């Protein structure tokens, strides 16, 4: 049971060498996003959305979206490079670690980064005066779920390719549409039915809805159970797929 922790520890040691370069963007991106969308666009959205001011409405969505972006950032190029260029996974596979340990340790590190990014966003949002409920910290748990649901299948994808041009395809045709059509910036009800299904099928919208309920202190109700179930399904399927793709590369 301790083996994945050793792998996590390795990634943390690595992070200790590089955190300064990522820390700034972790703080600056929420600031710019809040200024641009919350304050800037918000000024034009008179009367708010669903009964709350626009900035209060988009902050929880942005937190979930940040979690997803962080998960993609960690599960794409780093994973590809650990297979293709730096061969870190192969070095780990020669030690007494199992495929699940190598994968689980790295995923745990990704979730650490996800929660860190979401927490930075939450802190920035608090500075903008958008915190109104004691349930708000629950957005971090939602961020964790969204991070897992996005990172696990992405790791499986990154373990299946040998060139980063496929990652660019993923960014354009999965990450971007998901960011736009998942109810982060406007309610999905504004979308044509076909695009609404992008929201329903992919994990982000479910995270956005849960995050918004927590931030605004609303009871998620039965729909909340569905959201959690969809996210857990993405986590489980992504994990199983990632284990099998990693095994294919590491045990041949």
């Amino acid at each position, binding site marked *: 049971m301790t083996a994945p922790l050793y792998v996590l520890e390795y990634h943390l040691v690595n992070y200790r060498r590089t955190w300064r370069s990522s820390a700034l963007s972790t703080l600056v991106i929420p600031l710019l996003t809040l200024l641009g969308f919350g304050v800037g666009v918000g000024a034009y959205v008179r009367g708010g959305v669903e009964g709350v001011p626009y900035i209060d409405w988009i902050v929880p969505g942005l937190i979930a979206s940040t979690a997803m972006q962080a998960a993609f950032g960690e599960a794409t190029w780093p994973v590809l490079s650990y297979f293709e260029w*730096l061969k870190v996974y192969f*070095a780990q596979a020669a030690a*007494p670690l199992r495929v699940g340990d190598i994968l689980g340790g790295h995923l745990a590190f990704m979730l650490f980064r996800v929660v860190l990014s979401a927490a930075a966003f939450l802190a920035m949002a608090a500075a903008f005066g958008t915190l109104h409920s004691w349930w708000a910290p629950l957005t971090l748990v939602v961020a964790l779920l969204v991070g897992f649901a996005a990172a696990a299948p992405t790791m499986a994808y990154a373990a299946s390719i040998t060139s980063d041009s496929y990652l660019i395809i993923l960014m354009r045709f999965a990450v971007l549409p998901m960011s736009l059509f998942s109810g982060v910036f406007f309610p999905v009800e504004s979308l044509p039915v076909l695009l609404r299904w992008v929201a329903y099928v992919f994990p982000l919208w479910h995270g956005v809805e849960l995050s918004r309920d927590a931030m605004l202190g609303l009871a998620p109700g039965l729909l909340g159970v569905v959201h959690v179930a969809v996210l857990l399904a993405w986590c489980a399927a992504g994990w199983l797929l990632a284990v099998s793709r990693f095994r294919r590369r590491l045990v041949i």
Partner: protein
Amino acid sequence: MTSLIHARGLVKRFGDFTAVDGIDVDVRRGEAFGFLGPNGAGKSSTMRMIGCVSPPTGGVLEILGMDPRRDGPAIRAKLGVCPQLDNLDIELTVRENLTTYARFFGISRKEARRRADELLEFVQLAERADSKVEPLSGGMKRRLTIARAMVNQPEMVLLDEPTTGLDPQARHLVWERLFRLKQQGVTLVLTTHYMDEAEQLCDRLVVMDGGRIVAEGSPRSLIEQYSTREVVELRFATEDQAAYADKLAGIGERLEVLPDRILLYVADGDGAADEVNRRSLSPASVLVRRSSLEDVFLHLTGRTLVD
């Protein structure tokens, strides 16, 4: 005494391609054992099966008395692996490369630091302990990889082409360190296509070709069995070396015509050279040398280039 590696009829297939085609190997504790062969002979596939990162397709394989199909992690806990291509962490320092790797074996942080310092001393990298890996030379990186392979005090160290790509000074330093390990009683298993490496390091070796073992023995016994004691290399000042082959008939046990020279495999090199002079063939150059493992190797696996 039990074998550290025990293989019978070991097979590895990748789809239709058979990389290892039924080999029998036994490696005893404390010996240095080599797998020799041209590229594509199946050496690395064999090493990966021994390292328990590649399940055998068929046959029997026991490592340290355990079954790699079932006990992979337990076996890997007692192995040291130095892969063909360095997979060090270029972002981490030299010392961190050892300490983080030691943690994968459940070694405490304090003990990991102690071993790291000791091993860096051993591979002569102590003064580089806190520098990053990226600017190190190829030889230093290889020594660091060897140190990393020793961090769990393994019963057996697997080295896949340990000196490929290194300059002569770096190679000799690596050999010297490996020889030290061998003297300390560490079992070494290595692959190489350098004959001098095999002669320097291996007590016993097998020559592989096309996934099979084509010869087995100590370097000396292989030379005795598959070559002669000495080799005479003759160069004639002509485009057509083969024209001289008939005139050399009867000298030595075997004659090989190459595009640029003729090799005579003989017991007595000087005697053979005298005989060449007696026949007034006047070659442009005559070189008498001892037979080497290279002669055995080329005899067994042929001179055709394998890419």
